[in-house]
């Protein structure tokens, strides 16, 4: 059952078009990995779903409701919460106050403070400390706790592993696996391709603001993802024949690759 449906989304920053005709389907209880090079539009897409940005065209539906023009607090009330890139904690507030801010427009009382502290014992000890005094891993845990405090059904996670030690990243992803087991729906932006493929059911690759590959993570070939990631043409390969972008509900579920509409470019990306 579809929880989130993005259709034909265009987002512009002035003259620059960050997203063009983006389509995205996330089924309830699934985890979607959103990958792509820097500047491909991943963060823009997440922020538009969360309501921080407004598209110039296209619709966003959540749980059967059109939320295209809804402000962020209404979307949170309906169950969408976001962990922004770079954590973005309120530096002058304590850990606990940061988490309580996340509960300002809570969708459900599923995540009281106690449960958040049980999930992240490392921040329970530091609840009275300023958020700015914490380590990167602790801050990331607080940022996730702040999003969970809203009692979300859909959690948007933007590069939660950025700048963290591998052991801390592994712990965070273990925690995400626990959330998934509890029925949460996730959309994860992740630079580490392997980690994204391991943690998620589905995969969507953006290239220069367009969806170039989408489908279940399990069936996807690594070199196919790499090709979509960098926009290298895969023409000539048996499984890489370009096809039109997938419709909102068209076709049987399965791997669907679409050729990049733009010529190959964006060499700034890192795999």
């Amino acid at each position, binding site marked *: 059952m579809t929880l989130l449906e993005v259709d034909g989304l265009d987002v512009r920053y002035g003259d620059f078009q960050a997203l063009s005709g983006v389509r995205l389907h996330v089924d309830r209880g699934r985890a979607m990995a959103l990958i792509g090079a820097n500047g491909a539009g991943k963060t823009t897409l997440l922020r538009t779903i969360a309501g*921080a940005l407004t598209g110039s065209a296209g619709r966003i539906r959540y749980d059967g409701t059109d939320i295209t023009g809804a402000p*962020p607090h209404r979307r*949170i009330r309906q169950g969408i919460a976001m962990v922004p890139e770079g954590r*973005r904690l*309120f*530096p*002058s507030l304590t850990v606990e106050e940061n988490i309580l*801010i996340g509960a300002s*427009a809570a969708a459900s009382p599923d995540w009281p403070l106690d449960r958040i502290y049980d999930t992240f014992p490392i921040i329970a000890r530091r609840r009275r400390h300023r958020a700015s005094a914490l380590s990167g891993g602790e801050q990331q845990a607080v940022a996730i706790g702040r999003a969970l405090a*809203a009692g979300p059904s859909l959690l948007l996670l933007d590069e939660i592993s950025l700048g963290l030690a591998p052991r801390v990243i592994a712990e965070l992803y273990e925690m995400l696996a626990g959330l998934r087991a509890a029925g949460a729906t996730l959309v994860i932006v992740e630079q580490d391709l392997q980690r994204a493929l391991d943690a998620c059911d589905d995969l969507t690759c953006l290239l220069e603001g367009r969806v170039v590959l989408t489908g279940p993570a399990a069936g996807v070939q690594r070199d196919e993802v790499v090709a979509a990631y960098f926009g290298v043409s895969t023409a000539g390969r048996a499984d890489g024949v370009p096809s039109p972008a997938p419709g909102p509900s068209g076709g049987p579920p399965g791997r669907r690759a679409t050729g990049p509409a733009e010529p190959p470019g964006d060499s700034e990306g890192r795999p």
Partner: protein
Amino acid sequence: MNWVNAAVQGILLGGEYALIACGLSLTFGVMRLVNIAHGDLAVCGAYGALVLSAALGVPVWYTLPLLLPAAFGIGMALQVLLFGRALRAGILAPVMVTFGLSVVIENLLTAGATSDPRGLNGGGLALASFGIGPHITVSWLLATAFLTACLVLSLLQVALARTSWGRQVRATADDLDTARLVGVRVMPVFASVAGIGVATAALAGVFIGTISTFDPLTGTDSLIFAFEAVVIGGLGSLWGTLAGGVSLGVVQVVVGQVNQEYAVLAVHLLFLLVLAVRPSGLFAGSALEQA
């Protein structure tokens, strides 16, 4: 003992400066709004009390339960209709819009109430005094103004530190975009802060009107003193604002003891000195942050 007396009077006067400055400090700290019309809004409070007390036939103090909620509402309306739009239009727009508002208010007051100086009748409070020791006499009116300023600042501080409203205000002051993103409704937060700013200004205006006289242009002077109190105390710090106001008051009265002509000049020199030596203010570090 004259000097001690002067210092005491200066401290009391400083409470007045702090009361008018705290709204300026708060609106800057939260919304990054420099409200040039702040002093004029204070003077509007004084005129409002004058009109209300005449119309209702009650002492000035009895108009406050009517005047302060009205000022709060006007502040909210100004934020929603004017300041909020100006803040979205860039850095310069809020300065020009509030400057324009200041000019409009001053001219409307002149047209409606002439430029004659007026005073508010503070009743028995304005005439009574008490002594501390044999040499120091304190006016009950000044003492009340000072205690009121301390009370208002304390209440604000507690509200910012301990309530969920205060938490949202501080989060918004820290990072507006993220506050919106994680579910804070920014418009009511801004509107309430602007309401508090105008209500405290109106309260200060009533005290200014009872302690001395006022006319339609008094707001400009009040604004300068309020700005100096805020800058000396450190932007965004409520206790710093009180300390800044007290510093101004003490310098003004103590220098006035020597030569009245130099009293106001000395205040501005103190301000320039602080700006030159410690531009972040004597008590830098935000109360919004320390709360």
